[in-house]
């Protein structure tokens, strides 16, 4: 007796019909890199998987007016290969290339990364840094939530039963804004992030910061931009000592959110350097 059934959806509407079917506990399946690990369990928490990986609407990467739209079933490889995202979302492209190895990137999707909501998910800091909004649909409603609000904690999201994450949308960053993502893991490949950091930034003609965004990964219970750190930098010349102060303030924000833990002694120093270096790359390109 199979432990669950398999059905393929060809459109978002069909997927929503299938997910809303009260006879089943359905689980959407896109890249499978997280769901297939659950499948190994003797009694999975679902009795039907709905394959959404071939829905064309969920695979778009396009510019619409002042926004970039990315379908939830876009894989890490597809995102990293996209000229549009290379241009408009460099920190996201760098983060996608930091995920797993080639086979994981070929399968895993941005939507799955966010809905699985692992604390270490590499897609989170860049999407939050870019002020990304998640578009959710159910049979009866559609709504938008910032990614920072969709993720409520480790492996917890605001997604309701029957709801499907269909797209991400973020504003095209202003001209001249550079981006960077840095990941700290035990090794380069296949390692989950201990810390991640996404930053965007720009200097004005006088060499002062006139645009900056910073979002850490793997350290906050719920992801967020560090607006206090951004305010420290805005309008200032980003000297080494100012970037070090920004690193210090980032560490303070982490400790304020998580308290002091066994790993804090290490992470406090590591996140200072990670924030300063990532900001440096976003502001100066190196």
């Amino acid at each position, binding site marked *: 007796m*199979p*432990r*669950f*059934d*398999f059905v*393929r959806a060809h459109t978002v509407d069909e997927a929503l019909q299938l997910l809303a079917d009260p006879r089943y506990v359905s689980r959407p*399946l896109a890249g*499978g*890199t997280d769901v*297939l*690990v659950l*499948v*190994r369990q003797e009694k999975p928490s679902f009795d039907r*998987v709905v*394959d959404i*990986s071939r829905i064309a609407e969920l695979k778009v990467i396009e510019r619409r007016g002042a926004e970039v739209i990315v379908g939830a079933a876009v894989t890490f*490889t597809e995102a990293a290969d996209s000229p549009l995202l290379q241009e408009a979302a460099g920190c996201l492209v760098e983060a996608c290339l930091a995920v*797993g*190895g*080639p*086979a*994981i990137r*070929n*399968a895993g999707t941005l939507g799955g990364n966010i809905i699985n909501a692992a604390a270490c998910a590499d897609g989170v800091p860049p999407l939050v840094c870019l002020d990304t909004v998640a578009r959710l649909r159910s049979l009866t409603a559609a709504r938008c939530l910032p990614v920072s609000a969709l993720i409520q904690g480790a492996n917890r999201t605001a997604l309701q039963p029957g709801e499907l994450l269909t797209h991400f949308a973020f504003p095209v960053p202003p001209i001249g804004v550079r981006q960077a993502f840095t990941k700290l893991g035990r090794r*380069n*490949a*296949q390692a989950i992030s201990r810390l991640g950091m996404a930053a965007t930034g720009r200097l004005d003609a006088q060499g002062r910061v006139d645009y900056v965004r910073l979002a850490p990964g793997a350290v906050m219970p719920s992801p967020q931009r560090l607006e206090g750190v951004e305010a420290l930098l805005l309008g200032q010349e980003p000297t080494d000592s100012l970037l070090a102060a920004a690193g210090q303030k980032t560490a303070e924000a982490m400790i304020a959110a998580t308290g002091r833990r066994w790993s804090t002694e290490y992470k406090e120093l590591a996140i200072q350097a990670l924030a300063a270096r990532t900001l440096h790359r976003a502001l100066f390109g190196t």
Partner: protein
Amino acid sequence: MQIEFRLNGQPAAVEAPPDITLLDLLRDRLHLTGTKEGCSVGECGACSVLIDGQLYNSCLVLAPQVEGREVITIEGITAPDGGPNDLQENFIVHGAVQCGFCIPGMVLAGEALLRRKPNPTRAEIRAGLAGNLCRCTGYQHIVDAIEATARQRLSVPADALIS
């Protein structure tokens, strides 16, 4: 359920339950045991296969997901005469094989890389193998074998290449 796809260049139709992985479909139903089961959670790459030319961990693919797709396993990587192809020959020549358990995955990762990047740097070869673990060789000779293959393939006319 019935699953129809192309397997190593031939049409395949298999009756299988919907809740098994592609890895189990290949090994247990189709008896293609060249694809190895290592970690079963996408960490080791021993179960690597190509789906529509791209590298996947077959332990992280549900069997029904390959409906209509082209799957290539290590059994499908051969020279026209059925022997080892150029990449596999180079694994032998460069001493890239010890216990051999990871090698089917390494060969497929190498093929996937060379399809994407016909002229890779050593760093790019290492990045291409990043999802494949080997406990014996230290990787050096595996990288050598892929690098040598790339060089040879670039120096012969494209229509003489082994697909």
